[in-house]
C-alpha cells in the first residue's frame, strides 16, 4: 500500500488523533473524582496548617478522608461574605458534603470588580475561634496563594500558610518551604487604616516594632512582591469584615468586664492580646477608684 498517498495520510492522522482524544477523555473522566478529592484535601490541609492544628508534613501523612473529618470536627462555621463584610451564604461543613470556596482565581477578579463572594472559615481550637481567610495572586512564574488565620476577634494573625504553582525551588518556593517566613506572621496585625496597603513584606528587613510589616526573603524579591500585592488585595477586601469582628469584640469585652467573670471572658484571656486588653480595663477601673 502506498502510505505516501495524500488521502491515506489525512485519514490516518485523523484516526490516530481521534483515538488519542478518546483515550484521554476516558482517562480524564475516570480519574476526575480522585483528583478533585486530592485537591480538596490539599486545600483543607493548607487551612489546617495556617490555623495551627498540625504541621503540613504531619497532615501529608493522613489520608484524604482523615483530613476531611479533621476539618469537619474542628470547624465551627464557614460562610461567604460580600464586599461590605456581610454574610451572604453558608458553606456546608458536614464531612460528607464539605463545600469550599476554592476558585480563588475567579474571586481575585471579582474583588477588582467590587462584587466578590469571599469565604471565611471559622475553626474552634482550644475553646477559641480561629478565622481563616485565603489570599491569591501572581508570583514570578505562576499563581501563588495562601491561608491566613486570625484570632477570635480578628485583630491579630495567629498563623499563615502559602503555596505556589511554579516558583523557583530554593528561591521563590521558600514562601512555602521556609517555616520562619510564615512564622513571622504570628502576632502581626492588619493595618485597618490603610485599606489599599494593609500589610507589607519589606525587602531589606521590616522596621522593628511595626505590627503590619514582615521581612522579605533574600533571592525571592519578585515572589515576595507578588505575595505582598496578593495580601494587599485580599486583606484589603476583607477589612470591612475584620473591622466588624474587631468592633464587636471590643463591645463584648466591655460588657464582660463590668460584671462578674463570665465564661466568654475566661477563654478570651487565653490570648495574650485580649489579656492585655482586659488588663487595660482593670487598670482604668483602678484609676477611677483611686
Amino acid at each position: 500500500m502506498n502510505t505516501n498517498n495524500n488521502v491515506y495520510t489525512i485519514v490516518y492522522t485523523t484516526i490516530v488523533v481521534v483515538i488519542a482524544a478518546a483515550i484521554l477523555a476516558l482517562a480524564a473522566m475516570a480519574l476526575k473524582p480522585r483528583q478533585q478529592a486530592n485537591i480538596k484535601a490539599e486545600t483543607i490541609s493548607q487551612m489546617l496548617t495556617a490555623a495551627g492544628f498540625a504541621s503540613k508534613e504531619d497532615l501529608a501523612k493522613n489520608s484524604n478522608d482523615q483530613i476531611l473529618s479533621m476539618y469537619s470536627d474542628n470547624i465551627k462555621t464557614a460562610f461567604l461574605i460580600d464586599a461590605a463584610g456581610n454574610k451572604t451564604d453558608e458553606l456546608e461543613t458536614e464531612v460528607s458534603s464539605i463545600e469550599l470556596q476554592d476558585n480563588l482565581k475567579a474571586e481575585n477578579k471579582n474583588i477588582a470588580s467590587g462584587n466578590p463572594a469571599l469565604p471565611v472559615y471559622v475553626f474552634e481550637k482550644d475553646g477559641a475561634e480561629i478565622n481563616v481567610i485565603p489570599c491569591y495572586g501572581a508570583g514570578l512564574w505562576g499563581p501563588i496563594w495562601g491561608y491566613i488565620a486570625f484570632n477570635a476577634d480578628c485583630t491579630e494573625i495567629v498563623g499563615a500558610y502559602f503555596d505556589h504553582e511554579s516558583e523557583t525551588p530554593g528561591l521563590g518556593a521558600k514562601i512555602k518551604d521556609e517555616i520562619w517566613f510564615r512564622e513571622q506572621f504570628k502576632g502581626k496585625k492588619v493595618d485597618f487604616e490603610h485599606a489599599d496597603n494593609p500589610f507589607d513584606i519589606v525587602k531589606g528587613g521590616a522596621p522593628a516594632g511595626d505590627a503590619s510589616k514582615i521581612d522579605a526573603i533574600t533571592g525571592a524579591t519578585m515572589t515576595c512582591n507578588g505575595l505582598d500585592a496578593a495580601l494587599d488585595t485580599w486583606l484589603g477586601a476583607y477589612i470591612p469584615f475584620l473591622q466588624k469582628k474587631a468592633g464587636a469584640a471590643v463591645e463584648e469585652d466591655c460588657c464582660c468586664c463590668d460584671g462578674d467573670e463570665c465564661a466568654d471572658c475566661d477563654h478570651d484571656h487565653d490570648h495574650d492580646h485580649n489579656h492585655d486588653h482586659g488588663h487595660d480595663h482593670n487598670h482604668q477601673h483602678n484609676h477611677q477608684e483611686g
Partner: protein
Amino acid sequence: MNEELKKTLLNPIFKGNPITVLVLGICSSLAVTVQLKGACVMALSVIIVCGLSSLIVSLLRNSIPNRVRIIVQLVVVALMVILVDQVLKAYAYAVDKQLSVYIGLIITNCIVMGRIEAFALGNKPIPSMLDGLANGAGYGMILIIVAFFRELLGSGTLFGFRVLPASYVPNNLVILPPMALIILGCIVWVQRSIQKDLQEK
C-alpha cells in the same frame, strides 16, 4: 535471552547512556534532581512513557505515512505523558505537585523521540519496548545519582529523612541547577576514565 536483546537492554544503561554519552534529556535532569523522591517518580515516568510509546510506534511503524511520522510520534508520546500525569494527579498528588511542569515536559524529552526515530521505527515491537525501557532506566539511573548528592548536600536529607546532623549547614549552591550540571560533569568524567573508548583523540 539472546545476545541481541541483552545488548539492547544493557547498552543504554552504561555504554550508551542517554544522558552521559548521548547528552540528551539534560534539561529535565537539572530541574527535577533537587530531591530523591521527585527524581525517582520522574525516572519511573520516563521509563513508562519511553517504553510504551516505543512499543506503540513500533506496532504502527509499517502504516505510518513517512511525511507525517514525527507528528504521529508526537501524538503517541503526548498521549502517554498526559496519561501518566493524570494518573499521578489522582494517585500521587503530592509528588505531582512537586514535579509540576516537568512531567508535561517529558513530551519534549529528546530521549523519547530520539529512541522512537532511531530504533522503534525500524524494529519489532518487543525489542523496541525493551529499548525504550532500558533508555528510560539509563536516564533514571543518572537522575537518581545526581539527586542523591543534591539532596544529601543541599538539604542534609535522603527521601526526606535527615541523615546529616542538624548542625550541617545546607549548601545552597547544590540546590540550584548549576550544581546538577557540575555533578553530571563529574559522572561523565568518571565514566570516561573507566570506558577509554569514549575519549576523543
